[in-house]
C-alpha cells in the first residue's frame, strides 16, 4: 500500500527538479515594487545605531544617482520596476500577513535590521544580491532598506 505513495513522492521530487530548471524568474503580476528615495526616519536610525545624521528630511536629488530616473518626493514613490529591482513578496508571507522593515548592508549582505520574518529578510537579501549582480545597485550605496507592506485590509 505504501509503494505507490513512495513512487509518487519520487515522481514529485523529479517533477520538482525538472520544473525548477525550466522555470525562469519573472516579476509577479500582483506585486508592486516601489522605491522611495528618502532619508532614514529618526526611528530607524535609532534602531540601526546610525546617529551621525542630524537632518532626516533631506530629499535625494537625481544627481546623486545619475543612472536612475528622477527621484520623486517622498509622497510619490518611484516604481521599483523602473529601477529594475524585482523584490519578491513571498506567497506564504502574503497568506500569513507578514510585514516589516529589513535593512541590508550591501558590502556583505548582512541583515542589519530584521523584519522579524526570516522569509522577508531572505527575499530582501536575494533582491540585493540580484541588484548587485545586475549592476542596478552600487556598493557605494552602503545599505538599503526594504519596507514590506500589504495593501488592503487585514480582515479575514
Amino acid at each position: 500500500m505504501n509503494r505507490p505513495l513512495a513512487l509518487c513522492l519520487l515522481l514529485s521530487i523529479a517533477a520538482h527538479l525538472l520544473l525548477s530548471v525550466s522555470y525562469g524568474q519573472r516579476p509577479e503580476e500582483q506585486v508592486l515594487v516601489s522605491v522611495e528615495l528618502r532619508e532614514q526616519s529618526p526611528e530607524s536610525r535609532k534602531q540601526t545605531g546610525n546617529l551621525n545624521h542630524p537632518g532626516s528630511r533631506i530629499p535625494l536629488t537625481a544627481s546623486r544617482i545619475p543612472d536612475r530616473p528622477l527621484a520623486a518626493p517622498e509622497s510619490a514613490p518611484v516604481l521599483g520596476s523602473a529601477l529594475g529591482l524585482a523584490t519578491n513578496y513571498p506567497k506564504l508571507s502574503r497568506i500569513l500577513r507578514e510585514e516589516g522593515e529589513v535593512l541590508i548592508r550591501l558590502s556583505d549582505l548582512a541583515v542589519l535590521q530584521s523584519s522579524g520574518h526570516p522569509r522577508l529578510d531572505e527575499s530582501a537579501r536575494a533582491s540585493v544580491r540580484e541588484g548587485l549582480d545586475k549592476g542596478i545597485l552600487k556598493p557605494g550605496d552602503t545599505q538599503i532598506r526594504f519596507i514590506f507592506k500589504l495593501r488592503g485590509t487585514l480582515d479575514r
Partner: protein
Amino acid sequence: MFLLLFFHLLTAHAETVIVEATPLEESVEASRSVEIITSQDLKRKAPATVADVLRDVPGIDVVRQGPVGQVTSVYIRGARSEDTLVLIDGVDANDVMSPAGGFDFSALSAVNIERIEVYRGPQSVRFGGGALGGVINIVTKEGKGPFTASYFAEGGSYDSQKAAAGVSGRAGAFSYSAALEGSQTAGFSSANKSDGNTEPDGTKIGSASTKVGWHPDLLSNVTASFRYSDAQMDIDRHGGVNGDDPNYTSHSRQILTGVQGDHRFLDGRLKSTLGIFYEEVSRADNNYADTLSSDTLFDSFLSETQKVTSDHEYTLDDHNLLRLNLLWREETGGAVETFNGATTRFARQKQSVGGEGLTYIYDSEAWFGDAGVREDEPSITGTITNGRAALGYHLSTGTRVSATYGTGYKMPSLYQLYSSFGNPSLHGEFSDTWELTAEQHIGSAFNMSLAYFKNRYRNMIDFDSAANHFLNVASAVADGVELQTSAKLDPIVIDVNYTYLRTLDNTTGLSLLRRPQNSANLNVRYQIAKFEVYAQAHYKGDRADTDPVTFSRTTAAAYSVFNIGASYEFISALKFHARVENFFGQKYEEVAGYGTPGLSVYAGLSGEL
C-alpha cells in the same frame, strides 16, 4: 544650505524600497477546471435555489421534476446526477440511502452562502470516493467585520413566499454567522398539466444554518458549522398521463455538522487541518388510497455519514507545494417500506472507506501543474487507486493553456448492495477524464475560455432485469466542448457560454437520457449606480428521454427560457428586487411528463443593517 549639504554627505545613506503586495487567500489549484460562484453573484441574481444558479454554468444540466421543491438533479459533463459529490462546509451532503447515493438539490437555498465551487470531471484524488462525475463544494458565510444583520423577503407567482434573516460578524478572535429561512409555494402540478393533471404540488422548506469560528492568530483557526433543513412536499406518482396524486407527500430532514481546526507548523510552512463531519438524513413518504389510485405507500429512510479528515499542506517555496490528504468515512443506513400492506425491511447496513492521497503542486508565472495519487481501501472491496496529472503554461499573450488527466471512483450505494434488489458482490464504478483548456484574456475587460473534455465511465452499476438485481455492467463515454466568453463593457457585462455534449451508452449504442447535445446560456447585466437590470436566456437542445407511462424512448424538444430582473438599492438596509421568469411563457419540459413554470413574477426586499 551649505551646512545641510555637508551633513548630507556625511550620512551613511540608506535607500528605501517599498515592496507592496495584496494579501493572499489560500486558493484552489490553477489547473483545475473549477467555476467559482461568489456571494456577490448570488446576491445579484437573488435566485430561488442553488440549483437555479448552477443553470448558468457551462457543462452543467439542471433538471427539476416540476415546481420549486420537487426532485432536482444536477448533471456535470454528461455524468449521471448521482455522480455529483456535494460538500457543504466539508460535510458530505449526498443522501446515502437514495438508490444511487445522489444529492437532491430541491431544498438547498442560496441564502447564507459565501461561495460555490463547481469542479467538472472526476476528482477522486482530491475528494475521494463519489467524485465520479464532478464535485460541488459549497461554503457557507463566515462572519467578517462588525455585527451585521440581514434580511430577505420575497413573494410571487404560484402563491410563493420566502423570508430569511441572519446575523454575522466578528468579535475579537471569534467569528459568527447564523441564518434562518422559511419558504413555501403552492406550486403547480408536478405531473404536467398538459397531460390532464390538475392538483398543484406545493412545498414548505425551513432551514437554519450557523458557523462559528475561533481565530486566535493568523496561524490557527477552529470552525464549527451546523445546518438543518426540513422540507415537506406534495409529490406525484409519476409524470405524464394519470401521474397526479392528491395525497402523496414526502418529508425530508437533513442535519449537516462539522468541526475543522487548522494550524500552521514549521514557521508556517506546514498547514495541518483536522476535520470531523457528520450528516444525518431522514426521509419519509406517505401515500394513502384516493380516487385516482388505490395504491398505498408508507416508507422511511434513515442514514448517517461520519467522516474524519486530516489534511497537510507543506509549502516548499513560492512555487512548490506538497499535500497529503487522509480520510476515513463511514455510511450507515436503513429503511422500511410498506407498499399496499406488504412491508419490506432494509436492515441497517454500513460501509466504510479509509484512504490517503498525495499531491504535488507546482505554480509559477509561466508553468503550473500538479500530480497526485490516492489509495482508498473500502470495506467491501480491495484497494482502489486513483491518479491525476495536470500541466499548464501561461503565454505572454495573456493566454493560458493546460492539459489534465484524472480519475474518479464511486462505491455502490447501500441500496444497490443490500436492498431486496441488492447485490453484495458489487464493486466500485470508475471514471477517467482528459481535459484540454485554453483561456485568453484581452485586457481586464474581455476573456474567453475553451475546454475540451472526454470522460469515460466503466463498471457502472445498472439494474439487470434478467438477474433481478444490480450488476456492474454498463459503460459510457461523454465528450464535449465548453466555450465561455465574458465582456465587461462598463456599465454592461455580458456572459455567454455554449456547451456541446456527446454521450454514448456503450451497451445500447444510444445517447444518455436528458443530456442535450447543445446548450447555451446568455447573461446580460447593466448597472448604473444603485440600479441594476439583467436579462438571461437558457437554451437546451433536443435530448433523449423516456415516456413516463410507456417507458419508450422519446425525444424531448429543444426550448429557450428567458428571465429578466431588476434591483434598486435605496440604502444598504433597503434594496428592492423583482424578476420575471419565463418571460415569454414558453411551454417546455425538463423531464418528459413533468411540468415547468409558466410566466412567473417575484418581487421582494432585502438589506443589511
